[in-house]
């Protein structure tokens, strides 16, 4: 455990900033996440939500500030990045399943190559998580043979097979047809109940109310509002957050 970080925090972002060319994607972002905490991040598109969580497992490189995951500071060092990625699972908007591999092979690749599990152990683990996302019968199929909702649940299972301590969700239901959204959100709610630490970028406010411990509103690369859901939805302090909530809760 790094002496610089408070020991009860699993994720710490300190004054994190990032530019894309002239565009300031993140501006002095500060965020702490406790073990088991569920953070839901919302905000208009281009507000830096995705960039922020992508920095946490180093899919993006932050330029200023510091990021700690379980006491390990994310730097350019390969060992640090690997250590952090081993703890952090990620679910993408576009699923990003491996199309040339079966569902089972998608799930066992990481455990076999990274965790060095035996084939039998990796497959047992994969079937276990497939059962948890309610699609064990699809194990031998290819991703293109599944519906969007099923694919996203496979993607969640693929991350879980690495047994991470933290799960990041980057708009996991935005690419789905409406009738498939709930099956993915249900799986995520189940996961939340197991005590998993989660950061979820989403506009699904019903899910947020049910699951979030902390709501975060971002705009123009900054965290504008951070509050428990009761306060966040009933009396948001900032005007930007009020306007945003009115827009997305209107329908």
């Amino acid at each position, binding site marked *: 455990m790094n002496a610089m970080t408070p020991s009860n925090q699993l994720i710490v972002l300190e004054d994190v900033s990032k530019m894309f060319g002239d565009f300031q994607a993140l501006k002095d972002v500060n965020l702490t996440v406790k073990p088991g905490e569920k953070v839901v991040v919302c905000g208009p598109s281009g507000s830096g939500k995705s960039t922020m969580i992508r920095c946490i*497992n180093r899919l993006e490189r932050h330029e200023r500030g510091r990021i700690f995951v379980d006491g390990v500071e994310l730097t350019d060092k390969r060992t640090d990045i*690997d250590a952090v*990625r081993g703890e952090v699972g*990620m679910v993408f908007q*576009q699923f990003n399943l491996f*199309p*040339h591999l079966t569902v089972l092979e998608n799930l066992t690749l990481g455990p076999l190559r990274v965790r060095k599990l035996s084939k039998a152990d990796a497959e047992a683990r994969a079937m276990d998580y497939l059962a948890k996302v309610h699609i064990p019968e699809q194990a031998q199929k290819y991703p*293109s043979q599944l519906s969007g909702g099923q694919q996203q649940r496979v993607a969640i299972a693929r991350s879980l*097979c690495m047994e991470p301590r933290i799960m990041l969700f980057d708009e996991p239901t935005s690419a789905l047809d409406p009738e498939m959204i709930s099956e993915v959100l249900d799986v995520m709610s189940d996961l939340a109940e197991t005590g998993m630490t989660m950061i979820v970028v989403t506009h699904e406010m019903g899910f947020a109310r049910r699951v979030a411990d902390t709501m975060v509103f971002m705009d123009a690369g900054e965290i504008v509002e951070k509050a428990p859901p009761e306060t966040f939805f009933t009396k948001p302090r900032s005007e930007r957050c009020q306007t945003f909530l009115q827009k997305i809760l209107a329908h």
Partner: protein
Amino acid sequence: MNIFKHISTARTALLILLFGFAVSGCSANWGWYVVSPSTEQGRINLGFLLGGLKYTLALSITAIAISVVVGLLIALPGLSEKRPVRAINRVYVELVRAVPILVLILWVYYGLPQIADISISVFWAGVIALALSDSAFQAEIFRAGIQSIDKGQHEAAQSISLNYTDTMRYVILPQALRRILPPLGNQLVYMLKMSSLVSVIGMQELTRRANELVVTEYRPLEVYTILVLEYLVLILIVSAGVRWLERRLRSDERQ
């Protein structure tokens, strides 16, 4: 199996071609006896010509096997984010691609032994020259294939902590390979044809043997016609094989 369908297409094409020759033969002075299977000498000549096939195949297949590996190794630095690393790829591709294959064959066979102080057989000189030349094209094909794979695939692999080698081996290359199969097939056909150039340094492949037979028999029309047919059959079979492989891999992915 569909490969037979392609072979029968090839056979039809051959028959049409032969028929064409037979008809046009009315005016030209044909002398098919030099390669007639019904005479002793014809059989010997035919056997001599066809005997070059194993060298053409050995030469092309060895060369392409090497050039695929070298091409991939040259393609990878071309994908780096660091400019000096990318420069390795650019310099290799631009230099090698600029030299005509025939010139490369002559240089490797006559020039290389002098500077490197080694003796090199005709076969290996041919293989090295063909592989070197082809590797620059393979490198470009691989680079394009790898770049065509969605960024999300790399990110998904990173998110489950796969290292660079495993990401390439299990995630990126298997997908890239499916996409670049048509241009790879093209290169294979091209190499089969370019192997005829190795005849200039004395490799006993199809073209060299045809040349030698022409010198003893004075029947260029018939002998070179057989040579044309030999390449045609060979390449139609290879194309059919590549197409069969494409279909097999596609059904594997079921997209």
